[in-house]
């Protein structure tokens, strides 16, 4: 059995390598071009720093607003798709819907929303909301399914209503996890939002793509550096907040 799995895995990888034209020689031949590209990126052009910072700010705004809206919208969805809270006729369709919408990436949502509402950061926000709502709802529902039964029994035994049971038996158990998941999504959304500008959905990605198209690699490298710093700062702040939650 194990031998068969190994064989099938290796065969699949070999086929994928052949089908994608993966070729170390080609990579080696491309190395000088890569080095040339890097060489033309230094030194970074400081004159585009204001534009890069403005773009970074927009990206952070897109991620913040989109994640915040999704954190709230995901709440009812999360409860409805938790096996131990929702009745089966609700749970199964809710789970299926989550898995369906979650399989579409933020960038694809951005393409759709740019087509729907036009260019700019707003379709970017909508794209973040679209993906994050379903992915958070899935995380929420798993947190809800992992709760201790005891406090729920105890609250039920007081004669509480279903809503009171959720509020006092379930929510205190899952809230720290929920906040932690939201912060984690914020970190990944900052990264996802850096490329939203490629498809016209605003933020720092727009500048990166523009300078690359203009073959202004020194300006592009300024934008890249700002992106890296922005992501690192948000990661650091967010992970520090998450550590304090557990």
């Amino acid at each position, binding site marked *: 059995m194990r031998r068969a799995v190994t064989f099938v895995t290796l065969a699949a990888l070999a086929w994928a390598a052949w089908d994608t034209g993966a070729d170390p020689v080609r990579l080696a031949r491309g190395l000088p071009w890569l080095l040339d590209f890097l060489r033309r990126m230094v030194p970074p052009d400081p004159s585009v720093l204001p534009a890069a910072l403005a773009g970074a700010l927009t990206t952070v705004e897109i991620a913040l607003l989109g994640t915040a809206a999704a954190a709230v919208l995901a709440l009812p969805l999360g409860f409805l798709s938790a096996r131990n809270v929702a009745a089966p006729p609700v749970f199964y369709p809710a789970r299926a819907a989550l898995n369906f919408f979650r399989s579409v990436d933020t960038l694809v949502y951005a393409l759709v929303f740019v087509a729907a509402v036009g260019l700019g950061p707003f379709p970017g926000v909508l794209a973040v909301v679209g993906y994050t709502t379903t992915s958070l709802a899935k995380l929420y529902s798993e947190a809800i399914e992992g709760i201790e039964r*005891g*406090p729920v*029994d*105890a*609250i*039920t*035994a*007081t*004669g*509480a*209503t279903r*809503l*009171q049971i959720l*509020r*006092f*038996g379930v929510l*205190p*158990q899952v*809230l*720290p996890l929920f906040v932690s998941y939201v912060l984690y999504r914020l970190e990944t959304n900052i990264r996802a939002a850096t490329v939203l500008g490629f498809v016209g959905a605003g933020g720092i990605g727009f500048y990166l793509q523009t300078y690359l198209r203009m073959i202004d690699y020194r300006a592009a490298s300024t934008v890249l550096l700002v992106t890296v710093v922005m992501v690192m700062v948000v990661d650091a702040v967010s992970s520090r907040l998450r550590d304090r939650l557990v």
Partner: protein
Amino acid sequence: MVEVAGLRVVLPPAVVALDSVDLSVRPGEFVVILGPSGSGKTTLLRALNRLVEPTAGTIRIGGRAVTGASPTELRLVRRQVGMIFQQFNLVRRLSALDNVLTGRLGYVAPLASVAGRFPERDRILARDCLAQVGLAQLATRRADKLSGGEQQRVAIARALAQSPGVILADEPTASLDPALTGSIMDALRRINVERGLTLVVSQHQLATALAYATRIVGLRQGRVVFDGPPSAVTPPVVDTIYGGAVSR
């Protein structure tokens, strides 16, 4: 106070946890359910307020039907029945006082309580209940920062906050240091004597059961095999309950 007739509980997949249980508890009794583990003690207590759904039979508490009650009627019954659990089952991240306040959930306006607002007199009552178990000074401490004995006393205060007619306690001392058994059982006896509350408590320790009960109900393999005063619990009775496997 508690009327059980022909109670049968089949747990999934097909375990007969209780069968043909008849039990009539009068007001003010301190009933201890005695039996080996797996005899159905926990299932019986949880069936009384329908945390476990009875398969057949009838249950009435304080004159109200428990079996066949609508969700609203069931909540009205439950709020008059305090429950104490082996694992305390406090909400860990809430303070001791907030845990006791949850005992008022069956009485306060649902939406206001969900927003975290409780009427002042319910807060006062919760403080009183906490003081009665000797924990007034720990009101603001988070439940998971309390010792096991303190947590169980908070759980008793939560049950008292329900202004109950009956308190059900499922092995209330089994998760505690044996040295604390007496203090928890004493607290329950005080409730029984001073407030005249009816208590139905499960215990696996024979000596503790005999020391506190006014009446012993012996369960074995889901059936009542003994029902009488502690003084009538003779060695043959113990053998009947424990199947001769356990001796004193």
